[in-house]
Every structure is written in C-alpha cells, then in structure tokens.
C-alpha cells in the first residue's frame, strides 16, 4: 500500500484533516472516513452522477477525483444543503413535485440541479434536460425532476398543505401540457 498523505478538506462547513491513501476517491473519503453517507455511489464510470457534490461551488462527480485533489478545497454535499433546519429550495421542490421515488439518484440530482441553476438561473425545459444529462434516474422518467428544477427557477412558493400542487400532478392537466 502506498504511503498516506495528510489532507485538509472543508466539508459542509467543517474542516477535516485526515491521512489518506493517494488512490482513495473523494467519494470514498466522504462516505467511509467522514461518514457523509448521503452521497452515494451508483457506477464506476462517471456516468450516473449519484455522487455529485460541489467543489468550491461547482458540481463535480466525487467518484472522478481523488481525495488528495480536494486538499485545501471546500466541498458541499447533500447533507450541507439545508440551512438551520430549513430545506434548500431544490430539496423542497423535489419533495413537492414528486421528483424522487427510490431516492438513490436524488442527492446527485439536487446537487447538479443547484449547479445548473447557478450557471443558468432561468433555463428552458430542454436546457434543464441537457444540464442533467450526466445524472441518471431509473424511477421518475425525469419529467417531475425537470418540473422541480423549473419551479425553483420560476420562484414558485409552496404552501404547507402536505398536498401536491404542482400542475404536472393534477389530473387532466394533460390537455395543456406541451411537447418536448
């Protein structure tokens, strides 16, 4: 085994210093050393995006960089998105729009969506779809994920009725629905 290297990474607002093997992936460091198991591993070829986090505010797939490359950098994971017990707008929108089923792709989807909206605050539907190209979901067929991202871009405010008000949920909304 190669000798360890000491790294310091700020993750979700806390600074961690650890000795790591050079070959350790960032996602393994997050999950196995720091206990940040909210970030998930769905593939081994950088295709699925389940492991997406923010590195210095930009989305990266944490399976595609080594932990040592994050030395001195700031990482935000899904676990750092809610602030003071209040969900981030995308987290709320994913809930309201039924943009998740099994929830495995969700952390990565939310992190990528946040990055997408930061780059393009008012994307069209097709820009959202293109922007999420690197994140796979097997449950939702994407339509409600796109709706959730769009609702945040549009500044939709949700009530606390516990009932979905997203237009895509209403029966027979379909007559007015568009075509991709």
């Amino acid at each position, binding site marked *: 085994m190669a000798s360890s290297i000491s790294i310091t990474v700020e993750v979700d607002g806390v600074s961690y210093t650890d000795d790591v093997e050079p070959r350790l992936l960032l996602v393994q460091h997050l999950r196995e050393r720091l206990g940040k*198991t909210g970030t998930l591993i769905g593939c081994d070829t950088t295709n699925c995006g389940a492991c997406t986090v923010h590195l210095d505010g930009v989305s990266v797939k944490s399976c595609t960089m080594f932990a040592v490359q994050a030395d001195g950098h700031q990482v935000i994971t899904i676990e750092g998105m809610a602030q003071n017990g209040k969900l981030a707008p995308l987290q709320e929108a994913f*809930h309201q729009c039924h943009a998740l089923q099994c929830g495995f*792709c969700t952390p990565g989807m939310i992190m990528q969506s946040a990055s997408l909206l930061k780059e393009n605050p008012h994307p069209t539907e097709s820009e959202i779809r293109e922007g999420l190209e690197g*994140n796979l979901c097997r449950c939702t067929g994407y339509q409600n994920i796109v709706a959730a991202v769009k609702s945040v871009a549009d500044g939709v405010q949700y009530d606390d009725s516990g009932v979905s008000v997203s237009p895509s949920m209403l029966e027979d909304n379909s007559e007015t629905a568009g075509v991709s």
Partner: protein
Amino acid sequence: MTATATPRPEVGTARLRKEDAHLITGRSRFTDNMVLPGMLHLAMVRSPFAHAKITAIDVSAAQASPGVMAVLTGADVAAEQGSLPNAWPVTPDQKAPSHPSIAVEEVAFAGEIVAVVIARSVAAARDAVELVDVDYDELPVVMDLEEAATDKVLAHTSLESNKSATWVFDSAEAGTGTAIAEALANSDVVVERTLYQQRLIPAFMEPRSTVVDPTGEQITMWSATQIPHILRLMLALTLGIPESKVRVIAPDVGGGFGGKLQVTPEEVITLLAARRMGKPCKFTETRSESLQVAHHGRAQVQRLKIGATKDGIVTGLHVDLLADMGAYLGLITSGIPVLGAFMYNSIYKFPAYHFECHNIFTNKAWTDAYRGAGRPEATFAIERMMDELAGELGMDPLELREKNWIKHTEFPFTTVAGLEYDTGNYEAATEKALGLFGYDELRAEQQRRRESGATVQLGIGISTFTEMCGLAPSRVLGALNYAAGGWEHAQVRVLPTGNVEVVTGSSAHGQGHETAWSQLVADRLGVPFENVEVLHGDTQVSQRGLDTYGSRSLTVGGMAVLAAADKVIEKAKTIAAHMMEASEQDLEFANGSFTVRGTETSTSFGEIAFAAFSAHNLPDGMEPNLDSEATFDPANFSYPHGTHLAAMEVDTETGQVTVLKYVCVDDIGVVVNPMIVEGQVHGGLAQGIAQALYEEAVYDDAGTLVSGSFVDYLVPGAPDLPHYITARTETPATSNQLGAKGVGEAGTIASTPAIVNGVLDAIRHLGVKDIKMPCTPSRVWHALQEAKTTGGVQ
C-alpha cells in the same frame, strides 16, 4: 348524521410523500451505508470465461496480501452452500443444472463467482482478487438463443440438452376456444412474423449490497432486496439454517424493477463468510459487476402467426417462443414466459389460441423478472402483430383493434387464455387518448409529409394494452406449479396515544407505500394521516409477507391493511359500546368517533385506544388491545388497461428517431394517490421507451458482455426522453374492496410497442416492415437502405 364537516378523504388526494424527508437531506439508510464493529469486506473473483472447467485455484498469494483475512473457493464451502433456489418448476420434467453460489467444477457464464476474498477493507479485498490464480479449461460456448435450441453446443456439460422445459397452452385443449390449426387454415389472411425481444438489464440505480451480522442468537442480513420475506425463507431452505434464526432487513432500497426479486449468490456468500469469520461482512457490487451478473430480463424469440378474415376479424393466434434462461434458473426465471402466456390475446376476442414456450439455456447471465415480467413481451408481440395485420389488410390499425376488442358492455369476459377480465372500458380510454393526441390532425400531417417526400417522416404508434396485475390468487399460482402463494399480510397496531402503526408485508423500494398505506388507514380509522406510521422491510417487525413485485402491493397488500383496520374497528366498537353503555348495534363510526345513533353521545378513537391500554374498564373477557391482523388472498387478478399513442419522427437520411408526442390514458381503477400514480406511469414509460430505442445487453461470440458499463449500456438520460402527456379513465376492479388495479408496470408494458409501431408507421411506405429493438439510428438507417435496394422485401 353529524353536522360537522367531513374531512377531505385521503384516498384520491395527491399527498406528498412521507418517504422524502430523509432521502432529500442525505439521511438515507441504504445497505452500503452500514458500518458495524469489526466489519469485514468481500470482493468476488469472477470467471472471465463463459464456459470452462475449473482445474485449479491457487489462493496463496491473495491469502498473503495485506489486510486479507481469508479466501474461500467453491470447494471450501461445497458442503454448506447448497444450490440456489428456483421456485417455479413450470413442468414436472423441467431440467436445471445445480446452481452453487461459488462454482465448484464448472462455470457457465462470464462473471460467475469462483472465489471470494474477505479482507479488512474493500480496497484490500479487491487488490487480492487480482492475486487469485485460477486455471480454466475452456469449453465451447453457446450464446445465440436460436442456435442453443438446436443443441449443437451445450451450455452445461452436466445436461444432455439446452432445453429446460416446454410449456404449452392450447385453447382447444383447455376448452376456452377452438383449434388453432383449423382457425388459421380457414382464415383469409395469415400474417407470420418472427420478433425479437432483446436482452435487457434492469439497472436499478442502487447497486446490490448485503451486510450480514452473525453475532448474537440470530443471523441478521441487511440487503438491497425487494423480497425480505422470501429471501429469509430461501436462505433457510438453501443453507439448512432454521428460519427462526435468520432475520432479513431491506432498509432503504434504491429501485428494483424485478431486478432485486432474487436470491443471489452474493447474499448467500456474504452470509457464509460472516458465519465462518464470526464477524459482520459486507459485499457491495460495482456497477460493472451489477450489469454483468445481476439477472437480466426479456431475451425471447417470438414466432407468431395471426389469422383474420378479409374484413379484419381475427380468427386465431399461434405463439411459439424461445425464451433465453441464460446459464441458470434463478428464483422465477422459468415462469417469466409463462406469465406472458395469458396476455398474448390482450384485449381482443380471439376464437383460437395456441401458446408454447421452449425454455433454453445459453452461456449468458441468467434472466428473470424485469418490470412486467413476461407481459411486456406478450403485449409487444400482439400489438406489433395487430399493426402488421392492419398493414396486410390495408386497414387503419385503430379500426382493426376496435373490430376485435372486448366491448365495455361485454364484461365480465372470459378470454381465450382462460382469464376472467372483470371490468374495463377500452372505448373510453381510446377516445380520451385520441382527443389528447390529435389523432386526425397527425394523420393529416403524416399524409402531407408522405406526399411531399419529406426527409423527416411521421408515424403514429398505437398500443391498446391490458395486463394481469395483483399477483396473485394463490390457487392460480398453485395450478401453475409456483412454489408459494400470492397473499399478503398486514397488522394494524393501535398505540395508547391513538397513534397507529401499520405493519405491511409489502416491501417498498421507491413506490411510496408509507404514504399510500397511511392514506388508506387514515380514511378507514378516521385518524390524521400524520398519526399513521408504516413499518415494513424487516422480518422481525413484519413477520409474514410475500413482498413487492407484479403490481401487487396495493391490490393485495393494501387490501390486507384495510382488512386489518376493519378488525380494529370491530374491537373498538365493543369497547365503545361498553364505555357509552350502549348497544353495539346502535353505534355508528365516522371520522374517528363512535356515536350513539340519534344522540350527541360519542367517544373518539383516541379515548378508546387509551381505554384499551389502561384496561381498567373493559367488557368482561375482552383482551386489552385493539391490534389486529389480516391476510388477503385475491380471488382474481386485476386488469389495468389503457391506450398509448406515440407520434414518431424518423429522419430518413440519418435514421434518427424522435418522440414528437406521447399520450397515454391508463385505466388503473380507483387511485389512492394520483401523484404517486403519475410518477409510476412516467417511470414505466421511460423504461418501455428505453427498450424500444436505447437499451440492449450485447455479448460477443466468446461470451463477454460488451455492454458492461453505463458507457455502453444506454440507460436514457433526461435529454433522451420526451415530455409525457398522461390522463386516466376509471373502471373500478371488482377483485378487491377498493377497486384498485395496480400501476407499477403499466407504462413499461404499453410504451414499447407504441414507439416501435410509430417508427414503422413512419417508414412502412418506404418498404420497411420490421426493425429489431432497440431502434437505433444505425438500425433504422440500414433498414431503410435495405428496403431501397430490395424494393421493400424484408
């Protein structure tokens, strides 16, 4: 009647999901997140060859590798590992090879496990895998299904034939219809086609993972499974452990789609390793391993003949299938094509029907349930054939369907396959779909493009489908030789505070049972939605269950929940009558309170719950609790149906296919949560469209899976899929008290033929009659070129 307003019923409300809070904040409990004291990690040594004799295994270098605790081969566990179960011997003479979790003498597909490394870290285990030295003598492989059926090369040296079983249904023999040979002979037109169901990979997003803790009195397994109850039983039967000594927990499970309806070698090996080491062990597969060895789906050759009169009345259907089992029979591998047998006649009134399937071994990963399991294959075949027949007759494919389908006035209807369809209205769903789609306008646009010779042609794909859901009536399963029943169990427990715990045998992995079951119970008991807690996926909490697959959870599991809730109400009524010194017959129950009819005297569910807990003043002989349980076994399947329409653009210069518009109208009976239903339909459509356009498990001639990563196996992303336009019609099912039919598989079953029919409709006039799935640009382009050079003869 009380004057107070009745709260809005929960059933029918788009309740946001209870499941979401922990999943959107990263507080998930997927199996791979689990860490236990002293836990060891497993990595598998897998055969690179598709068929070979194992002649020697040298583990010494791996054993000496840093961090390695043990290396086990098949020989090391031969006495204890047993043979992995097949629960569906479809015929009495079904043939199957022995199926050890770790191969002992012979491997029959690439990826089969030959040894396991147990180490202190995943990295150490994987490093050591490279050091295990296995000597193989390669054997001939048989990869092609049609070639395998000839027995020229055998997939297993231990078997004399690649044929596992032949299963036959014949309407004349069954007394459900006339004889097929005669029917076809007397037809004006007979269309004969061979269609191919490519091999698919379920590709759930969470790779499979298993943790086993052997400490304490019980062995506890956490696993990414759809079937904790069946898994527990099968582990006990396979390994000879008393069932009571095994506890299985399915924590958060990241999708399944049938792919986690299995008893896997990895689960058995992790248990054996943990038991041997006396320490918790974990195995999590990589995505590449998952694609290679987690069971595949579909993989059939469908040889079909359909006869009709010249004015379009179908006279009979003959189906002859080759079904690729892969190298072994998994839990229900052999039964998948049999499940399809009852669906080839679909919504139509066929006088004669013959079905036979030949289950064949090849040197590939074994197949088993994948979303729809047999029914998508059947629906694809018949909906493709109806279009082919319409083309042959020069008839609008919709008109042909209308002429042959069961009219809504004809229910209940016993089909030529022997099922009794209880309810449905194909006319209503179709009419609604046509309106949303703009059928006439799109046909006119299609005509314009044809006449102008436009580069991008337009096609309309139709799929009017039905399926059998709510698997399943236990008697029917018994008649089909399936080893278990199809009932489901539930418990409703009332806590002293009046909060309610619902224990369900269904095992959700994304479907939203916690939310939907809460809605059911909130309405039935008149308690707030928030006061209901749904517990599932742990055999120690939910001691009886048959788990989640086959669109069965609501129609079977949900009905068990309602039946248990009804028993709670009966118990509560006795206590309420005692408390109010009234006769039980004079009480009415509404909105969570018992009221003495005609008076203001009432007592609430919460008061009764506390009275049952304190037990200070209960009727004589009454046991002090309200808890109840029920097991529901449906008398019939449920039959969701719908009409799906796809407008497909085909670029005749590049072969590029685009979904211009997709409309589906589904009739799934009574809906508990329209939001969840919508999500199930969307996800189903995505997987059905994926079969039509994108996905295929491809092997090379030597038996290596070429599409072995997400780089090569094309799970569609957001830009690859259209916006779906969805709507519903509703004819309640009669096979359960709610009238629900099930929705988990509808989208997947219906959409594949709609898309392919649409592609072919766009270019049929150019001479193209078939394109193998997935309809990639390359295949479409080649089909167009071939049609050009051969003048349209396929």
